[in-house]
């Protein structure tokens, strides 16, 4: 038999290890190392805080009393986790985006940051969790008692057991305070605690499996033999009550969502949404392993242990009875782990709720000056949280002392489940139904919680404890249909199922009806949209009106809550984001929203809202925010934006049509002008030809010199007509892109030689000097040489025709501009006036009088078309003294010589 002192020593050693693990994990998490800390494995194991001492010891007891019914306790959570995509994912996402610190915070935040709701949920949680904590203390002391009874009798009496329970409570409080309140921001994960819990999860699993394996193969005589013994045991004959099965499965499913400690590990401590996907199968797997040997242990325990032995302790007493002290000690540690992990997480969750929803609001209420008061709110919050942890554990201990530890473990657990499950309608309604209102949630919670207390919680203390035997039997004032366990005369139901049906039914009904008939306030509608549509718009939040807040006051307040460093960093970053220096950003609505959310991570949404509100003046919901609220609005906006898009499209089409129309009109005008021009250009020479030929025909007495003159005019004008027709045809071919080019290797200097020669001289005037730079002209090209020289000829002859200098000089220079060869033709005349420079390349744009020109004004238009076809360009260069044209050759046709 293991000595009791030894057991205590092992226990302390185990706790020391847990401290060590938590400490190392905390340090690792702080340094950002230890990737496995953030792994889905640790997350899944931390969820096992669901399996408390009640499941560790109690499941066997439960099985011994009610057969397979204990499975429901595992079935509920399994269903919820398998269906994680539906609800859990949304909860976790909301928890992250809204920086939710607890289930009370979630409900309060969802329903317009109502602290009233926060307080109610906190109270429900405290009332529902206290018996549960008592249960854990009880299980630890009971397991101590087992060893005490088995050991030397005498020194270990009930008084000592109570003392043991008390010291366990103290120890847990110390651990929780130490690792649970290191950080103020609940959104910063409690790495230490979570890791310690994961370790405990492994310990309790190994312990239970070890006991199970020992029982099956050590006592039962193998798997088959054990199965036979189960068949023969009373368990096999125990009936399955469908009502209880459904009710219990529902309760357990609700519990994993609403139990404060489960919410803490599931949502608040969640590191990564994707971990849920792993937990969805891994946690049911864990739960399956935990329940694997429950029935064998119960069956064999009932057979082997003396009648009257507490089946809740079979896990412990079976190995002890077989003299397996080591195994018993392991089992004890498993139970101890189950109990302590539950208490620690529950205490953290409850203390966060109590300090955020009760202590802080009271404090803010008492110190009206609020956030600008002296002192560090941070220390205050932490102190409130530590005191709350102590208070929660103290309550648990008191409950344990009051009830005397008489209840069967399972019943206490179920009563707790049913209590916290009252939050479920408000929770699910809050994240799934935008119509859910604060008043509805208040009504549902109040009705449900009251009914739970009346029908289940208060009667659970036993006849005469809170409710008299008469009240239980005959109802208040003798009104039979108000009997706590037989409302409306429903006597046949199991008390638990009865309580669940009535409390949850009335809760859901009140919640729904009041929500339907209530009109939510702007903040509620806004938060409703944020929660229900969390996947649509994760960022954003409630609005603050611009600018009334003093950034400095906000900084002072934030420093007190977040600590000077964090707060200053936050403000500095916000200022930098706004493009400002220093620590004081503009108090834009965005900034206030971010700040409030950050503070919410420490003190809860309602308190953070109130604190910022005290400085800013009042919160406001902007019109734009409201627009986002209603689904209808969103749909309308979408519809109207579709309409807008359509009308935009119409406008676009109309614009295009108008443009096309304008272009066509312009083209038509251009065509008219062109035809008119052509007509003019053709008719003018034809007029001379006709007039002179008539003269020649009619006048026989024409002097010979006149005859010669007139014949020459006819000839000249015919030539002019031909030239015009040639140009027109040429231009038409070029413009229609029908021209066929014949690229071939040519030398630029050859082309220029040819062009200058072809342009001819100036008839009857001083010859024009042409300056060239033969060295620069040594460029080899691959292009249509004939077409290019057509351009050159045109430019040279233009210069010869129009250059009005006394000593006309044309300079042809070749340069390289941006990797392309440019040939400039610059004369020393008066050039082309500014206003005309833009039209010289247009058809028939003849600037001078036609007598001098001798062309139809198509030359430069043709040049431009040719250059476009060749892939180059021709432009007029203003400010070069005289008329100056630059012909840029396409890069691909220029190859370095």
């Amino acid at each position, binding site marked *: 038999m293991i000595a009791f002192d030894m057991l205590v020593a092992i226990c302390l050693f185990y706790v020391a290890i847990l401290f060590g693990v938590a400490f190392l994990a905390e340090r690792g998490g702080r340094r950002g190392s230890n990737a496995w800390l953030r792994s889905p494995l640790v997350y899944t194991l931390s969820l096992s805080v669901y399996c408390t001492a009640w499941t560790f010891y109690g499941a066997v007891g439960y099985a011994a009393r009610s057969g397979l019914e204990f499975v429901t306790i595992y079935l509920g959570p399994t269903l919820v986790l398998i269906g994680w995509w539906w609800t859990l994912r949304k909860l976790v996402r909301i928890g992250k985006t809204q920086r939710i610190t607890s289930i009370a915070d979630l409900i309060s935040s969802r329903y317009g940051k109502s602290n009233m709701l926060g307080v109610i949920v906190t109270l429900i949680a405290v009332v529902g969790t206290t018996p549960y904590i008592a249960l854990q203390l009880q299980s630890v002391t009971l397991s101590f008692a087992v060893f005490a009874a088995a050991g030397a009798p005498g020194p270990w009496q009930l008084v000592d057991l109570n003392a043991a329970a008390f010291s366990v409570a103290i120890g847990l409080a110390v651990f929780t305070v130490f690792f649970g309140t290191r950080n103020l921001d609940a959104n910063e994960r409690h790495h230490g605690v979570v890791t310690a819990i994961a370790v405990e999860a492994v310990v309790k699993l190994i312990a239970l499996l070890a006991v199970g394996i020992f029982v099956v193969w050590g006592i039962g005589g193998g798997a088959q033999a054990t199965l036979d013994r189960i068949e023969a045991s009373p368990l096999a004959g125990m009936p399955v009550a469908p009502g209880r099965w459904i009710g219990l499965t529902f309760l357990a499913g609700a519990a994993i969502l609403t139990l404060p400690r489960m919410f803490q590990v599931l949502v608040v401590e969640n590191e990564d949404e994707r971990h849920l996907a792993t937990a969805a199968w891994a946690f049911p797997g864990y739960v399956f392993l935990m329940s694997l040997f429950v029935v064998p242990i119960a069956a064999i325990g009932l057979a082997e242990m003396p009648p009257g032995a507490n089946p809740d302790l079979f896990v412990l007493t079976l190995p002890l009875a077989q003299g397996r002290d080591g195994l018993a000690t392991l089992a004890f540690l498993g139970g101890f782990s189950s109990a302590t992990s539950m208490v620690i997480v529950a205490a953290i969750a409850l203390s966060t709720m109590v300090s955020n929803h009760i202590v802080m609001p009271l404090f803010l209420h008492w110190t009206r000056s609020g956030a600008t008061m002296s002192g560090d709110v941070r220390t205050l919050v932490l102190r409130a949280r530590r005191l709350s942890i102590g208070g929660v554990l103290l309550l648990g201990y008191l409950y344990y002392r009051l009830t005397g530890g008489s209840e069967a473990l399972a019943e206490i657990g179920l009563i707790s489940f049913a209590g916290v499950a009252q939050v479920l309608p408000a929770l699910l309604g809050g994240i799934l139904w935008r119509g859910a209102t604060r008043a509805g949630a208040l009504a549902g919670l109040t009705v449900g919680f009251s009914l739970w207390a009346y029908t289940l919680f208060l009667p659970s203390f036993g006849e005469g404890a809170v409710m008299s035997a008469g009240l239980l039997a005959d109802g208040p004032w003798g009104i039979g249909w108000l009997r706590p366990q037989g409302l409306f005369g429903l006597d046949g139901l199991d008390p638990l199922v009865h309580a669940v049906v009535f409390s949850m039914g009335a809760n859901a009904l009140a919640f729904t009806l009041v929500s339907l008939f209530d009109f939510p306030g702007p903040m509620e509608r806004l938060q409703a949209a944020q929660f229900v549509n969390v996947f649509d718009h994760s960022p954003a939040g409630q609005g603050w009106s611009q600018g009334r807040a003093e950034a400095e006051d906000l900084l002072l307040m934030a420093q007190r809550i977040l600590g000077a460093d964090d707060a200053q960093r936050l403000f500095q970053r916000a200022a930098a984001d706004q493009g400002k220096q220093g620590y004081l950003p503009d108090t834009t609505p965005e900034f206030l929203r971010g700040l409030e959310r950050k503070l919410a991570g420490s003190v809860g949404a309602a308190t953070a809202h109130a604190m910022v509100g005290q400085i800013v003046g009042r919160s406001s919901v902007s019109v734009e925010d409201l627009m986002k609220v209603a689904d209808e609005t969103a749909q309308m906006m979408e519809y109207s934006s579709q309409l807008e898009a359509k009308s935009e499209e119409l406008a676009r089409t109309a614009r295009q049509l108008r443009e096309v129309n304008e272009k066509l009109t312009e083209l038509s005008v251009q065509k008219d002008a062109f035809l*008119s021009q052509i*007509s003019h250009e053709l*008719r003018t020479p*034809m007029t001379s030809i*006709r*007039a002179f030929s*008539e*003269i020649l025909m009619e*006048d026989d007495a024409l002097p010979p010199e006149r005859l010669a003159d007139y014949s020459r005019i006819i000839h000249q004008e015919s030539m002019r007509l031909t030239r015009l027709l040639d140009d027109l045809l040429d231009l038409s071919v070029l413009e229609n892109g029908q021209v066929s080019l014949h690229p071939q290797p040519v030398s630029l200097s050859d082309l220029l030689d040819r062009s200058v020669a072809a342009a001819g001289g100036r008839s009857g005037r001083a010859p024009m000097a042409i300056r060239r730079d033969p060295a620069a002209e040594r460029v080899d090209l691959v292009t249509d040489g004939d077409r290019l020289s057509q351009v050159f000829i045109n430019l040279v002859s233009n210069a010869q025709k129009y250059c009005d200098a006394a000593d006309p000089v044309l300079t042809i220079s070749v340069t390289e501009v941006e990797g392309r060869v440019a040939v400039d033709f610059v004369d020393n005349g008066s050039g082309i006036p500014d206003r005309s420079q833009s039209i010289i390349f247009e058809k028939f744009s003849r600037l001078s009088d036609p*007598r001098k020109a001798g062309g139809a004004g198509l030359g430069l238009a043709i040049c431009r078309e040719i250059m476009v076809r060749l892939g180059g360009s021709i432009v007029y260069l203003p400010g070069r003294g005289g008329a100056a044209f630059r012909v840029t050759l396409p890069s691909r046709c220029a190859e370095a010589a």
Partner: protein
Amino acid sequence: MDKRVLLIEDEPNIIEAIRFILARDGWRVDTHADGTTAFDRVAETRPDIVILDVMLPGRSGFDILRDIRADAGLGGLPVLMLTAKGQVKDRDLAERMGASRFMAKPFSNTEVLASVRELTGA
């Protein structure tokens, strides 16, 4: 006889042709090639008839016609308009603006001569 024609036209060969045709018939022909100063020339020379080209450098023949018609002393002056554009709308415009006659180029020499005679009542 010795009636005077003012020919306002910028094409040198056409000027030469018309001058020859009319001079042969005994007309005294003055010529003017610039649109901007054409009206002043009309007022100054006060011919019996003006032969006016539509497309002139500097100023349109229509503008000159309008000025002539608007002038109290010159209002009734016969104006024979010549145009190389020959589009219907030009003819309409010319008639609306009070051209005595409108001829499209290329014209027949006899037709020009007949018109000039007719318009001057010679």
